[in-house]
């Protein structure tokens, strides 16, 4: 019976330890609370039937809902996917910089100094010049507006290219982090297998591994499956990356052309297209909305250059010269104004015939081009094409914003649920602590009672 008392003391002590462990980890977000499982020990058979022999602590069990874990993992990937897209598109929106001006604006188009404003300014300048084609003021106004427009195109192109570079950089960094997490998880698998080789579950290591898996889910969508020895196997897109304690394969980036990075497995070189996580989100934004923006801008620039130049070459300047170009360059990045024009406004070919300085046919045609539907732009005018391109980006961003709001509310519901299952309630642990403490006191009292009784029995023989 002393043995019973001793074992009881041990059991209650373990209970106190578990309660204490829970309390210590009350603010650890990755921790799930643990419970001591106590069972009655094997009864002894006696002449009056089986007699109980006290209690034993058989296991320390973790309270965790694996289904919730999987759902949260999935949600994390989705949210990360949307957040990385949102960030990328917000950079692009800031780069474009078109905002509607507040009350009191004086007929600006978009932001003053923005591309929409410069585009409309150039064609207005052509119109203005058509009323006085030989006037130097009008000519200089046209040239200066044209320069503003080309500079704006160049800058916008540069900003988009730089955002593209940033996105590629972030893919590279994320792949590095993902590889680090893969090796961490493999290491934890090994440790868990070792710790669980005997009996019991390695609860804290499992918590840590789950946290790492969730961090990995933020970067890339993984499929997790547990094997016989409690290790978590990770695969992405059907490619096995971690199995047991070994990392079968890692991720690497590769250049898919033009410096655009995509992801593939390092060993087998199989390209991966994950459906969630920030890596996929960044790639999606880069190759989707950002690329559409860049292409739209380049197409517009190319069309403006070619249409204006075609009409312009037929004109005659004040000295009777013809055939020169108005714009130089081929797309948004290298678009410029003919240097000869900048130096000498008289060389602006406004007239339709040689020798008649008052003739304005070419500059009138250029002014009228603002309202002409361009076949190369899907039968839109230049301004309509630009407005369509940038609001395309706006639509993509607005859609991501809405989706993200939805997903975030789902995520917070899931996390509340998880907290209710696995979170530590200080009150509950305090109660358990008190319970184990009293049980310990009672068991100690049992030992002293048995000791007293044995003392009486021993002193009987005296």
């Amino acid at each position, binding site marked *: 019976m002393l043995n019973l008392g001793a074992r009881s003391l041990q059991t209650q002590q373990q209970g106190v330890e578990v309660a204490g462990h829970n309390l210590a980890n009350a603010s650890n977000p990755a921790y799930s609370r643990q419970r001591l499982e106590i069972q009655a020990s094997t009864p002894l058979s006696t002449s009056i039937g089986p007699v109980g022999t006290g209690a034993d602590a058989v296991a320390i069990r973790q309270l965790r809902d694996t289904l919730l874990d999987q759902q949260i993992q999935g949600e994390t990937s989705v949210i990360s996917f949307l957040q990385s897209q949102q960030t990328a598109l917000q950079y692009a929106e800031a780069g474009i910089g078109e905002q509607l001006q507040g009350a009191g604006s004086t007929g600006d188009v978009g932001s003053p100094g923005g591309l929409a404003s410069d585009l409309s300014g150039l064609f207005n300048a052509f119109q203005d010049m058509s009323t*006085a084609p030989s006037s130097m003021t009008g000519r200089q106004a046209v040239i200066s507006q044209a320069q503003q427009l080309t500079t704006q195109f160049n800058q916008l192109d540069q900003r988009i290219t730089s955002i593209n570079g940033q996105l590629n950089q972030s893919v590279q960094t994320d792949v590095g982090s993902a590889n680090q997490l893969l090796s961490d998880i493999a290491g934890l698998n090994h440790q868990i297998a070792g710790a669980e080789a005997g009996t019991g579950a390695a609860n804290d290591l499992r918590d840590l591994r789950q946290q790492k898996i969730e961090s990995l889910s933020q970067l890339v969508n993984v499929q997790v499956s547990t094997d016989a020895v409690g290790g978590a196997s990770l695969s992405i897109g059907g490619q096995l990356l971690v199995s047991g304690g070994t990392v079968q394969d890692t991720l690497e980036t590769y250049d898919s052309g033009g410096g655009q990075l995509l992801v593939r497995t390092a060993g087998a070189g199989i390209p991966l297209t994950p459906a969630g996580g920030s890596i996929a989100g960044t790639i999606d934004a880069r190759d989707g909305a950002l690329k559409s923006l860049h292409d739209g801008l380049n197409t517009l620039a190319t069309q403006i250059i070619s249409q204006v130049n075609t009409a312009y070459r037929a004109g005659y300047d004040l000295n009777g010269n013809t055939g020169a170009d108005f714009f130089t360059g081929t797309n948004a990045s290298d678009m410029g104004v003919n240097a000869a024009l900048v130096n000498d406004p008289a060389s602006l070919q406004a007239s339709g015939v040689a020798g008649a300085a008052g003739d304005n046919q070419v500059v009138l045609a250029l002014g009228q081009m603002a309202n002409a539907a361009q076949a190369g732009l899907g039968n839109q005018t230049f301004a309509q094409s630009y407005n369509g391109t940038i609001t395309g980006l706006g639509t993509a961003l607005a859609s991501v914003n809405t989706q993200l709001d939805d997903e975030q509310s789902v995520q917070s519901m899931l996390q509340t649920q998880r907290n209710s299952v696995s979170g530590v309630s200080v009150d509950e642990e305090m109660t358990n602590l008190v319970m184990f403490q009293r049980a310990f006191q009672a068991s100690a009292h049992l030992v002293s009672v048995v000791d007293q009784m044995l003392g009486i029995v021993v002193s009987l023989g005296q």
Partner: protein
Amino acid sequence: MNRLQNQAATGKRISQLDDDPSVMRQVLDLQTQDSQIAQYRKNIASLQTLANSTYNAMSGLQTISARAGEIATLANGARSPQELTAYAIEVNQLIQQGVQLMNSSGQGGHIFGGTQTTQPPFVATTDADGNVTGVTYQGNESVPAAEIAAGAPVSVQTPGANTSGSGPTGLITDSRNGADFFNHLIALQNHLRAGDTASISSADIPALAKDEDNITSQIAQNGLIQSHLSVADSLASTQSLSVKQTISENSDADLAQTLTQLSATQTAYQVALQSGAKLLSQSQSLLNYLT
């Protein structure tokens, strides 16, 4: 709450691309249209100035033509040779005045030379005594047009002379209606100097009548064009107002609504903060009750 504060501060319901992309697109297109309308009004103003200058010159020409006709009528057989010579000198001066008027300039150069604006349209050649012997036209017959609305080019200029038989009517000379003002004036001058009153009444008076008709009809046309411009301008002004209104309807924030929403959101925020603070300060837990 940030979004509402922004809306209240700028007065705009949508200001960024992602606030409401389809409406944003409409608004940008409308703003482009508005900017174009403003430019057309500028064009109209330029053309009105030009039309005015043209009218002033034509009006001066009409005065000259009236005086020349008067002289031609007065120069009948009852006049003495001295009077005729005096008339001849006056006609000479009238011709020179006419040439000067026809060489007036506007913002873009000479206005009566067609599209030939760099050199004076009319050049008078004089003999040793200072009498005008001939006037040559150095301009051409094409006139520039400018747009007053999309696809509506308008020209307010008249070429000084048009002998080609097609195109805008020349002010001084036109082969279709027989006007040839300067030459007829020179003929009148020569006849006066020669004392040839018979030719004056048989040839010069009808000729000058044709010239006067031409000038009068040109002035009438100028008046029509000016009123056309003024109508176009008020139309553009109405259009611009309507476009601005549509822009405002689509993109401006209803201040009353925005401020009400902002105030409600702020109150809710304050309530949340206060209840949070209460919960934290009264933190009830088992610990308060143990020992």
